[in-house]
């Protein structure tokens, strides 16, 4: 109990600021089979430097992905084949966006911004598990890679650069 309180206290003091400094998703839980609007929150640059590009890798099972254009940023979508075929509105979908790049912009360290895309969470994704969207944040001459995925049983808080995660809820 004591150690729980202690660690809870530690989380309160250290954890909140740490969580704030990570690139995260605004909505961190969504049901499988639903449409999901992903809002990537970029709270700061890389060690004080302005952010110039944000790249996100779309995990397998997130289909029909469309990014939202952003004024001042060049948008690029890298498409590829999915590992398997998915059913969407009665049609087979076998390829789509695998990576989205927003580049050529400049987001100073002292400002905050969001990068948005939308997609469908395939109905056969495993509910209860977490889906990770690895993000590379590029700055002038530096980069921060929010790409760490916890190993089985590993505490997510122990990671230095965790990938933004989305908890999959059962189908509604």
């Amino acid at each position, binding site marked *: 109990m004591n150690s729980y309180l202690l660690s809870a206290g530690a989380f309160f003091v250290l954890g909140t600021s740490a969580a704030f400094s990570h690139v995260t998703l605004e909505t961190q839980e969504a049901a499988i089979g639903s449409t999901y609007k992903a809002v990537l929150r970029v709270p700061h640059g890389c060690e004080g430097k302005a952010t110039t590009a944000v790249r996100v890798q779309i995990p397998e099972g997130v289909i029909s992905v469309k990014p939202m254009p952003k004024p001042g940023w060049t948008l690029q979508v890298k498409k590829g084949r999915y590992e398997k075929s998915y059913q969407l509105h009665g049609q087979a979908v076998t390829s789509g966006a695998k990576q989205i790049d927003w580049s050529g912009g400049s987001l100073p360290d002292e400002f905050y911004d969001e990068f948005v895309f939308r997609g469908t969470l395939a109905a056969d994704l495993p509910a209860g598990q977490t889906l990770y969207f*690895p993000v590379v944040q590029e700055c002038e001459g530096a980069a921060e890679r929010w790409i760490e995925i916890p190993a089985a049983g590993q505490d997510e808080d122990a990671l230095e650069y965790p990938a933004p995660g989305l908890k999959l809820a059962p189908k509604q």
Partner: protein
Amino acid sequence: MIFWRRALFERARRCFCGRDMSAASLLRTGCTTGRAICLLAAIVLFAAIAAPGQAFAHAALVTTEPTDGAVLAQSPAQFSLTFSEPVSPLVLALVRPDGTPVPLTSFRLNAQTVNIDNPHRLGSGTHVLSWRVISADGHPVGGSVLFSIGAPGAAPAVSEAVDRGLRSAIWVGKVFLYVGLFLGVGGAFAIAWLAQGGRAGQLIVIAAILCGLVAAPLSLGLQGLDALGAPLARLAQPDIWKAGLATSFGRTVLVALVALGLGLLSLVGPRGGAKLFALAGLAGVGAALAASGHASAAEPQWLTRPMVFLHGAGIAFWAGALAPLGLAMRRKPVEAAPFLRRFSQAILPVVAVLAAAGIVLAVVQVQASAALLETAYGRLLLVKLALLLFLFTLAAINRWKLTGPAEAGETEVQKKLVRSIGIEMLIVLAIFGVAAGWRFTPPPRALAIAAAQPASVHIHTAKAMADLSITPGHVGPVAASIVIMTGDFGPLDAEQVTLVLSKPDSGIEPIKRAATKPGDGSWRVDDLVVPVPGRWTARLDILVSDFEMVKIEAPIEIRPK
């Protein structure tokens, strides 16, 4: 996955040649042989007490597979030991968890690496890979590597105690070998070349040669015991002698026996050949010393071996002449005058060559002057230098103050000269004792090589593996070299590699450095300083692709400086 056990690690790289020779037993053995030997023993006792606690190998163990303290999932098919210089294995054994030793006889030498086949399937528990090898200087070193199958258990008991009686015997054998070579063969040379028909001191010289003739083969057997780590009781067994003969000291003994034989022949053989035999014997003394030992094994060989030869032959010339000359002076001062004249004419260039060779060897061996005080080898050298200073002072007085009047026939001066020569003899014996002590102290040159050895670790996971070496493997400014591969030994073309060194128990924040690619397929970190010794955790963050990072880590032991 590799696990480590802290306590076990300390057992690796244990060296059998250190300072822990028994000074007390040396003293005991020595004192029975007379007061002069007692003096030597006292000097070596002093050196042994003053020696530092840490023992170093002559050939240093660099890496092992499995690593010391490793926990393996299954029985390895092979072991490998990599040293700082080429070695030949003497005894390789695997000690099972229940303490039963299994000799490992199938091995291959590949440059500095010994690859050993493991013929048995090992059960779970902690095993000890016990090794004993010999390096080019002819001095055996040994140690053990502990590893476990499945999970670590209690380490089996391995007897590694230093055999003090054996060490004392080796030392005494070496002193007597020196007596035979320098006083015996050198004395025979003096009688043949300088005494002009006088035979004074012949009995002592013959006695010295016989002493050498006994000590030389005995030393070979003792060397064999040391090589195999066997107790004195096994001296009679043939494999002991075979092992001794196979080391480079075996060559020394064979050449020494020839030199001793030639010396004896020049004294008791046909008169006509006496000079030739004596000269060949003197050359044999130099050759015997140049055949093995620290100094002869040092690089550059084209320099050190001839220097050891000259040094040895010079000592034999000088030290060998002392007894015949002193005795000739005491018994027949008038007849001894030409002997004295010839000796004093020749001794200056001989001592010049002897000293020059000695200085060259000392510079090669000691390298940095600080090592004179910091290492046991350096302290023995200082003791030897002090004795030499005393000896040179006496010799100079003899040469420039006493020789002239003695040759002119002043009896008082002649008596003084004889007494002085007697003291010189004692100092020479003491120097032999000190020099024989070097058998147990690796030279600073070898210590520097050992200190410069990298700390290495092999990290193997399913996703990636890496060989990380930190050079030198001690605290201070270091460079890290990293070779990465995929988990199944394939090439791994990483986009970026970051080295993170941390030591949580010392309250040091992780030291994080991005590695660069020098272009030879490896990764390097140059601007690194390791502040404290001990067990660090080395983590490698390998960026396999834009979105995939593999992190692998293992403990790495950083030595104190």
